[in-house]
């Protein structure tokens, strides 16, 4: 059948799950190959995963996928049945096959199912070699569209409309007929649908009542059917009782005169000559079956019940297979993401309105220990619980992402000629779906970097007294309401002298600048910085850690780096659990309340008069400790009436590490706000990332500091201004930071 689009979606979702199970299993196989105890559950599970992908792919006519899965499955079947034993080489091959299968699934999802993919073909050859079989030819397409179990009968087809033929059918079922759920009456009904049917019973096999098994069959039938349908229609009726019955079908007209010995017609004629004998014996003992050879009526079988008494079906003798304990079927339902987002949105409204009610209650002077106050308290707790639980719906375990990273490390190690192992931890940690999706690219880059730049080659490692195989660990943990992902390698650590000299070379820092170790490490995040002397095939690609940092920031994350010489480097990424709410600072600006993400603000300053120096009609700077920072008047940026008082400055840093002081009137509060998209409802506004609704019902815009700054100051001018101001303001210092938010 051709799958409907939604079933197609299901198929690819299921593929993801199966590939995940496959990867899990292969990790066990790898452990097993290096001496760990075998888990008997692993091989069948791996086999099933690939087998199910093949099955679904077949239903959608994805032949390239089917073929590859089949070759893969064959090796797994050998492993499953102990005809092969896992070796490290085989484990590597299986991993590669798993990776290729993943690629093919991805390609199929994108509408590409290329049966001539050379890499897939090469790998299929390797798989076939591993399973001890010659590589399959293109024609040998097991698992494809054909019906393997069915051997075509090659018999004449009487098209409907031709004159009716009388058939005599000798139907001699074995005793176990009923044990397989067959009912002769059902067969006769089906035959009756083809034409007038006469049924005669032969009871010659009936034993003495004492030895008769009431649930077995001892009856033979002699049927006469007159039909315009061909022999194949009759045979189809009997298809499922093959092997359970002797069946003789003879076209009556042909019965008498023909030679009794089967020399008449080989049955492959079209039968239109009228003289053909439409006769076949259907006796399917599967491997040896020769159904294409018709047996003439005279050669009736001597043994009427072929598979009879001796071969009692296991079914009737077998003990019940399993106790009827109740295993919970997977207790999950699948829900459209849109519905979840709708729910999240509604809960966002709920939270906002709850804040509004709280404000009204306060204004009305309702005491919090009154009945209303206490009731509201319960309401508020419930609201926040609902909010948490709804957010949790969008949360997904980070495991599939981590599994992809295992592959990245394998590939990176192969390309760079190093040996590396990835150890993952905290795979069950759940993060917002979108965060996970948008984390994939930066994380990939970080891991490539870790293999390429972090780890030393085997000789260097051994010389340093380390194991030749480099270890990269990838972990996820919850830490104070955020998720922290760490990538640690046990390599040589950052070569700070080299980093510093490169930074000087590229004019990123002053040669005389005194930098702490941490500051040097941070240079890696500067745009265009690359420690590799030549851009390597791997982590190069023209992308630096600055891009990684920006990608992380875009999902509300922060990234930091720690390194110890000779011991390795650790990158920590701290991510919000959700993108639906934001920790923000509520500020006042020219009578408007706005929100600025707390993660963007390095510190807040309260400048004294004289700390701010005008360097032109529109420009001013403030000196913050040893640096001079341009002041950005947000009121002006957003075209608000009037100028901000600049009583409070928010120090922010852009991706280029340029610092700016955003001038605002006051800080009102710090709170979690529900993010409401602006672009969907209005349009993009420069310098604004989204909006939220405050407790008093007013809408507050959420500032995107990066963009706001770029709106304010043409960078060259700002730099010139800063330089000029640096000369001008030798000694004045603003009052120290009001509070450090970060």
């Amino acid at each position, binding site marked *: 059948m051709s799958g409907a689009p939604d079933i197609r979606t299901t198929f690819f979702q299921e593929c993801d799950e199966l590939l995940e199970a496959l990867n899990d299993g292969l990790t066990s196989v790898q452990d097993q190959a290096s001496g760990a105890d075998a888990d008997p559950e692993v091989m069948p599970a791996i086999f099933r995963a690939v087998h199910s992908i093949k099955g679904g792919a077949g239903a959608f006519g994805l032949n390239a996928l089917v073929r590859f899965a089949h070759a893969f499955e064959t090796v797994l079947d050998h492993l499953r049945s102990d005809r092969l034993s896992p070796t490290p080489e085989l484990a590597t091959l299986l991993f590669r096959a798993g990776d290729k299968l993943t690629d093919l699934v991805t390609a199929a999802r994108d509408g590409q199912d290329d049966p001539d993919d050379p890499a897939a073909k090469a790998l299929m050859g390797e798989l076939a070699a591993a399973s001890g079989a010659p590589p399959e030819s293109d024609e040998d397409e097991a698992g494809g569209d054909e019906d393997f179990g069915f051997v075509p009968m090659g018999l004449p087809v009487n098209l409907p409309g031709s004159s009716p033929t009388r058939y005599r059918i000798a139907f001699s079922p074995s005793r176990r007929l009923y044990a397989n759920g067959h009912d002769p009456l059902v067969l006769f009904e089906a035959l009756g649908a083809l034409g007038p049917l006469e049924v005669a019973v032969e009871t010659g096999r009936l034993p003495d009542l004492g030895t008769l098994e009431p649930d077995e069959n001892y009856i033979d039938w002699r049927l006469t059917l007159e039909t315009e349908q061909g022999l194949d229609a009759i045979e189809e009726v009997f298809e499922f009782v093959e092997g359970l019955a002797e069946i003789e079908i003879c076209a009556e007209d042909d019965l008498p005169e023909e030679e009794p010995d089967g020399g008449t017609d080989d049955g492959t004629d079209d039968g239109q000559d009228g003289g053909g004998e439409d006769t076949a014996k259907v006796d399917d003992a*599967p491997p040896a079956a020769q159904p294409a050879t018709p047996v003439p009526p005279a050669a009736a079988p001597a043994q009427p019940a072929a598979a009879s008494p001796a071969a009692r079906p296991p079914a009737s003798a077998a003990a019940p297979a399993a106790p009827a304990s109740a295993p919970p079927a997977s207790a999950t339902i699948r829900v459209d993401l849109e519905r979840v987002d709708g729910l999240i949105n509604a809960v966002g409204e709920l939270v906002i309105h709850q804040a509004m009610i709280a404000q009204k209650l306060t204004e009305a002077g309702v005491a919090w220990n009154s009945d209303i106050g206490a009731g509201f308290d319960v309401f508020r707790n419930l609201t926040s619980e609902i909010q948490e639980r709804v957010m949790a719906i969008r949360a997904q375990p980070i495991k599939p992402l981590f599994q992809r990273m295992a592959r990245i490390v394998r590939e990176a190690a192969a390309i760079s000629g190093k040996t590396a192992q990835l150890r993952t931890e905290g795979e069950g940690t759940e993060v917002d779906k979108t965060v996970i999706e948008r984390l994939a690219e930066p994380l990939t880059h970080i891991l490539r970097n870790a293999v390429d730049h972090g780890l030393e080659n085997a000789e260097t490692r051994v010389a340093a007294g380390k194991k030749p195989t480099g270890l990269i660990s990838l972990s996820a943990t919850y830490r104070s309401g955020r998720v922290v992902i760490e990538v640690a390698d046990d390599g040589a650590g950052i070569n700070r002298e080299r980093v510093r000299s490169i930074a000087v070379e590229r004019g990123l820092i002053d040669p005389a600048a005194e930098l702490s170790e941490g500051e040097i490490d941070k240079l890696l995040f500067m745009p265009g910085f690359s420690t590799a002397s030549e851009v390597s095939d791997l982590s190069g690609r023209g992308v630096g850690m600055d891009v990684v940092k920006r990608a992380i920031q875009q999902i509300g994350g922060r990234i930091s780096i720690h390194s110890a010489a000779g011991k390795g480097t650790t990158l920590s990424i701290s991510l919000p659990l959700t993108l639906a709410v934001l920790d923000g600072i509520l500020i006042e600006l020219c009578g408007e309340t706005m929100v600025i993400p707390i993660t963007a603000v390095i510190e807040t300053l309260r400048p004294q008069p004289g700390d701010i120096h005008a360097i032109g009609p529109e420009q001013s700077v403030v000196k913050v400790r040893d640096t001079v920072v341009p002041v950005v008047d947000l009121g002006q940026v957003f075209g608000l009436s009037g100028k901000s008082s600049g009583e409070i400055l928010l120090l922010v840093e852009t991706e280029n590490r340029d610092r700016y002081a955003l001038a605002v009137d006051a800080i009102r509060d710090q709170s979690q706000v529900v993010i409401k998209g602006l672009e969907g409802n209005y349009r993009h506004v420069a310098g604004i990332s989204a909006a939220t609704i405050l407790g008093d019902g007013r809408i507050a815009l959420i500032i995107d500091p990066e963009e706001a700054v770029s709106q304010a100051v043409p960078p060259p001018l700002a730099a010139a201004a800063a330089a000029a101001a640096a000369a001008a303001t030798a000694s004045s210092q603003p009052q120290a930071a009001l509070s450090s938010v970060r």
Partner: protein
Amino acid sequence: MSLTVLAIDDSRTIREMLNAALSEAGFLVHLAVDGQDGLDKLGETAPDVVITDINMPKLDGFGFIKGARARQDYCAVPILVLTTESAADLKARARDAGATGWIVKPFDEMRLISAIQRVAGLRAAG
């Protein structure tokens, strides 16, 4: 009254396909995720026909068939095996376990329904 079919397959994709095809054809469809789940659901769903996959976790299709055949009330229910297996001995194995018939994946709706009708008889026609 429409015929009740219990379809057992560990693949969600195949389950959804069976459900779609059979429901459209007017059958009352129940689904189970593996052989054990199938045995557990026999009683509550009282199927007229069962369709089962072979390769499944917990309890495979053969195990399911044997389990069902060992039960007084389901020893004669038609059970169709749904499989991608190409092994020549599959039909024999399924038959030995007590299967009534088989459907080869990928199946087309017409063949699926005709196979059900063939084992369920005229009961399936309405």
